[in-house]
Every structure is written in structure tokens, then in C-alpha cells.
């Protein structure tokens, strides 16, 4: 698989600049972060992780489809309760990468990254954080949220331009009836 780290990083900035509702300034991302909650580095790790879960092929992978944007946006809303899970989990992923390969996750090859993900999934990943938290639970959470961001409705900040739905051959726009309505008005994530 081709690696997309540089490319996706540029994409992040664009996605964040285009912005989905919830004011980025409210966030807890460090000063130079394009994200609302995540730090720049956390965003990069998450992008690389999600891109192993749904890699780029003839269709965009998770990162290009906006999965990091999806997760970051939800961390400002209904997933507020997972903030510390992500903060610790993403640090833990780097600890595991360092322990096995002597480098941070983003710097690993695709095959090495898969190895880290598999260790997390098995629940026996090395790393100080995984002595207190379950790496298996973190990888399940990450997998679920990545699938949501890729296959879920674009209104939540992922699945850009309905790319996964196009891939599956599902006609878009989805409304078939006589009652059309503005999807941008409500039904989005409560902000802050």
C-alpha cells in the first residue's frame, strides 16, 4: 500500500479550514493544531492508524475521507467522554511502536503499522499505558469510530462527498421522497 502521510496532512488543514460548524477555537488542540481537540501530532497518528484500517486504493482511504475530522468533531460533542481514552490511547500507540520498532507510529512502514495494530487488537501490546488501559478496548473503539467516519453520513464530518457510498454503489443524494429538507440545519452534532 502507498503511504499517504504527507498528502493526508495537507488534507487535514484543508478540511479543518473548510470547517464543520463547531468552532475550532473552543478546542483543546495545542496552538498549532488544525484540530478542535486533537493536537497536531495526535491528528497525524490517528490519520495513519485509520488509514491502515481503511487503506487508500482506487478509492480514498479513511484519512482522505475525513475520518480524523469526524472523530475530532465528535470529541467536541457526544464523544467528549472518550477524550482521555484518545489522549492516552494515541500516546500508547506510539509507546508500542517505539517498543517494537524503535520509532513513532507515523514513521513506520505500512506493514510495521499493521503489526502494531495487531498487537493492540490482541491486547498484549507493549507500552506503559497498556499496563493500566486495555489496548484491545482502544483498538475496538478506534475501529468502530473509523468505520463510522468512513461509512456514516457525511453530515458528521467524515465520508467526504459520500465517497464510501459511491464506492458501494449507493445512489446519493439519499432523499427519495417529496419532502426535501435542509440537512445542514439540525441533526448535526451538538457543539462544544
Amino acid at each position: 500500500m502507498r503511504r499517504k502521510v504527507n498528502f493526508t496532512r495537507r488534507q487535514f488543514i484543508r478540511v479543518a479550514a473548510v470547517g464543520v460548524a463547531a468552532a475550532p477555537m473552543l478546542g483543546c488542540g495545542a496552538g498549532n493544531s488544525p484540530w478542535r481537540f486533537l493536537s497536531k501530532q495526535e491528528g497525524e497518528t490517528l490519520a495513519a492508524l485509520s488509514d491502515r484500517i481503511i487503506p487508500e486504493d482506487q478509492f480514498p482511504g479513511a484519512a482522505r475521507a475525513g475520518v480524523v475530522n469526524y472523530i475530532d468533531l465528535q470529541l467536541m460533542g457526544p464523544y467528549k467522554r472518550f477524550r482521555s481514552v484518545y489522549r492516552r490511547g494515541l500516546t500508547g500507540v506510539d509507546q508500542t511502536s517505539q517498543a517494537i520498532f524503535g520509532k513513532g507510529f507515523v514513521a513506520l512502514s505500512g506493514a510495521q503499522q499493521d503489526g502494531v495494530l495487531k498487537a493492540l487488537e490482541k491486547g498484549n501490546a507493549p507500552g506503559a499505558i497498556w499496563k493500566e488501559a486495555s489496548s484491545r478496548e482502544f483498538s475496538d473503539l478506534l475501529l468502530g469510530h473509523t468505520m463510522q467516519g468512513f461509512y456514516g453520513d457525511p453530515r458528521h464530518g467524515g465520508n467526504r462527498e459520500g465517497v464510501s457510498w459511491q464506492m458501494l454503489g449507493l445512489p446519493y443524494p439519499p432523499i427519495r421522497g417529496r419532502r426535501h429538507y435542509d440537512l445542514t440545519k439540525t441533526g448535526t452534532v451538538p457543539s462544544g
Partner: protein
Amino acid sequence: MALDRVNAVVIGAGAGGGIVAKELAEGGLRVVLLERGKWYTAFDCRKDDLRNQRTSVLGCAFGPDDERNRRVTVDAQGRELIVLPSDGAYQNNAACVGGGTFSYGALAWRYLEKDFRMRSTYGAVEGSTLADWPISYQDLEPHYEKAEWEIGVSGDESNNIFRPPRRRPLPMPPPFPSREHLLLKAAALRLGLHPFEAPMLRNTVPFNGRGACMRCRWCVGFACEQDAKNGTQNTVIPKALASGNCDLRTECVAKEILTDDRGRVTGVAYFDADGRLREQPADFVVVSCSATETPRLLLNTRSRLFPHGLGNRYDWVGRNLQGHAYAGAYGLMEEDVYDDLGPGASIGVCDYNHGNPGLAGGGALSNEFIRLPYHFASLRPPGVPRWGAAHKEFMRRYYRRSLAVHGPVQEMPVFDSRVQVDPRVRDAWGIPVARLSGTNHPHTIEIARYVAGRAEAWLREAGATTTWLKLPGRGLSGGQHQAGTCRMGNDPQTSVVNSYCQVHDIDNLFVVDGSVHVTNGGFNPALTIMAIAYRASEHIVRTWKGTQMRS
């Protein structure tokens, strides 16, 4: 602050409560209908695949909200967990006008004759409180009919040789078949089964002043933008209001039921939309809060005469919590079968509801509602990885080529699967929350295995080249099909209400919702809840005209 006295307060505007409110109001009684949720309409239909009543990862679109509500669950190892409505373990149904019927899948089965006589049919099952109902199918038949015509059901059961006798056909024809329907129907006939067009609380033709279903992709768990899905919110509740006798108060949360020192109910204390505590005096009260919230309310109402909660003299309130053990199979075809014609579920067989060798029951099988992409991403045959390039390729290759058949297996009720109130955790109104504990009965899992195998055979006959089973776990059941926690029976020592849903030792208190089910049938329960509500209402109105519920 006390309000003007009315004849009846009905708590909960769902399947049961909506019908009772309408029948009472049209019968001339002054009714207050309290509902903790909002009144949504077709225009609130967002078709949000991550935030609805079926897939609630980002919240429950039709309540309750994650901010103000909690429950405590206790797992088999005794570990306690505080869970939110959007977590599966919360066992949510809904909180809005219409209750579950606003967003349900709308399958509308009548239970079979044997479903009311499980104990006589199968004998005792060790570790289960399996029992007969105090009423028979024949007692409910006219009320099933009323539900089918007043709320509105489409379908065609003529090929179902297991169907119990009915006097009147369904008011609406089934929708025209999808590709999947045709494949499954032909396969079922080749297997010697008796497939039929599943009954649905859904307009297939204009009916009741509303239009027909337009076959969208997002039905179960969503509101219907066409207003073609029939729930209590667009049928009986508007009629109740039109009678001039019913006052619907939304966003009002019942806190406890008020009683006097003679042991009679005198009204309801509730928090109104502004959070003010109100007291609504009434001649009698009907609790229709669903099978987890109803026992919670009864158990939260304690006094000198009722130290363990209302109706709980013999410790049966909250017991026997059950839902359905969903069993079935998925199959992959080598050609496209998806034709984007909702709602999905359309064909049923009752061949495996009863008479399964060595098993105490079974369940109806039908095809599943449309599986949206995020849902499908969690399904795969053994051997396909959960993630990575191979998973993405699997999604792409098979999304339009999958079939699913499953069914609600009737559960063996377990006394220790129960709703209590938690001694510590409270919701945003300060009311002690529901505490859920228990497991599914092992025999339920055996039955589910058998039924899942039958589903798999059906898919194979339909041409599926790869198949795998969907089996329930031993965890507590409840959720959308929650039932059983205020059992109906003739013996006050082993049940909570009589056959008219009247609490045994309190004449002017009724429970009318899924709580009263003795067993839950091998079918989705809503039509039966509705039929019971019509039957109980008829009794209440009749009694009212005699005694005014005053003693």
C-alpha cells in the same frame, strides 16, 4: 403545586399509553397524558444513520438523551456499570410521543394461540418462570383486529397455514416485492415452507388520511418523512386530542405515583418541561412507560403501606425482564440482489415458531431491514478480517450482494433477570435510575441455535454461496422488545396485574404496556401491546361508567 383533578392520568404516550388515552378520552373521561419526550413529526425526520433509534452511536434521535439519563447495569460477574441511553447495554426503546412506534420497523404480527399457552404446551422449563397467560388468543382477537384497522396494517397472510383464525382481513395489501423478496419466496417454497407477505403497520396505499410508503432505505429506527409508518403519534393520539377530553403534556417526567393512607392512588407527581414539580390529582392512574421504566416508577413509589413499591407485595415488579433472542443468518450471493427498495423486511415464515424437535418454542423468520453501510461494516463471514485492504474489498464486493434472514426467538423468562432501582445513581431530575441485572436462559440460546440453522438453510436454498450465523449471547435481553416486568396473571402472588391490567391490590392503578406480557411470543411485540391496550381500555371505560373508580 396541585392542578385541577381529572379522571385519569396516563403516563407514557407510547404504544400502550397512546391507545388508552384515546379510548378513555373518547369514552368521555377527562384524561391527562404525560410524556417525558417531545412530539416529533415527519418534518423532524433526519435519516441520520449514526443517530437514530437503531444505531445510536451518536445518540438516540428520539430519546432519551445522554445528558440527563442513566442506568446501572450489573453483568454476570456482578460488575456494575453506569450506562447511557446510546449504549446498547442501556436497553433503550424511545422517549417521544408515540414511544417506540414513532421510529419502529412496524412489523405487526399477531401472536399464535400457543404463544399464550407456553406452559401447557411445553411443560415446566427448569430455571424459567414460563407460564400461560390468563387470557387466550380468542380473548385478544377482536382487539388485534381493532389495532390493525385503527392504527393500520398492510400485508397478506393467506399463505401462512399457521395463522390463527381471524374475522377480518388486513386493511391494506402488501407492497410489491423487492428482488430479495422474490428470491427468498421461491426458495422457501422449494423447501416446503409457507412464506407470506409480512404484516406491517405501514401504509402501502393511502389510508387514514395519510399517503403510502415510498420504499426508502431508512425505515427501522428512523422517522418516516412520508408519515406512512403508523404509530400512536399519527393515529390514536391526534384522535384523543380531537375528542377535547385529553390534555397531552410533553417533556413531563413522572417522578412518583401519589397514594393516600387507604392504599389508593390519588394522582401523579411529575416534573414539567421547566423542571417544576407538579401534582396532578386523578381518580385513577395508568402506567404505560414501557417494561423498564414502568417497574422503575412503581418501585420508586414507596410509602408506609407500600414499603417495597406499588404492586410489589410479592416481589414480582421488575422481574422476568425479557426481549427477544435474535437468531438468524447472513448470506453472500455472487450477483447483486440489492435494489434499494425499502424498508427491507417483507417476507415471513412461521414454520419454526413451534413444533421444533425437543425445543420449547421458536420464532418467526423474516428478511432483515436494509443494512446501511456502517451497519454492514460490522458483518462479515469467518475468515474476512475486521479491517484493512481485504475488509474494504469485502465491503465493495458484497454490499449489494448480501441477504439476511433472522427472527425474534421467544425467550424463556428468568425470574432473576430484572429491573430494580439503583440505591445510589440518580438522573438529572434526582430520580433513582433503573438497575438492570440478569442473563438469558440457556434453553433460549439452544432454540436460537436451531432457528439460526433454519435461516441459514433458507439462504443457501436462495443461492447464497457463503453463509454464517447470527446468534444471541447470554447477556440480559430487553431493549426494543422489552417486556414481562409486571406480569399479568390470576394469582396475586405470582403476578402484578390481572387480565385487565389492573394492579392486584390497588383497584385504581393500571399498567398497560409491554410490561404485562407473560411471555413475549416469537414475534415483534407492538401489535400485541396495542391489542392488550384496547382490551384493557374497554374494561376501564366499562368499569368507570359503573363505579367511577371511587370506593
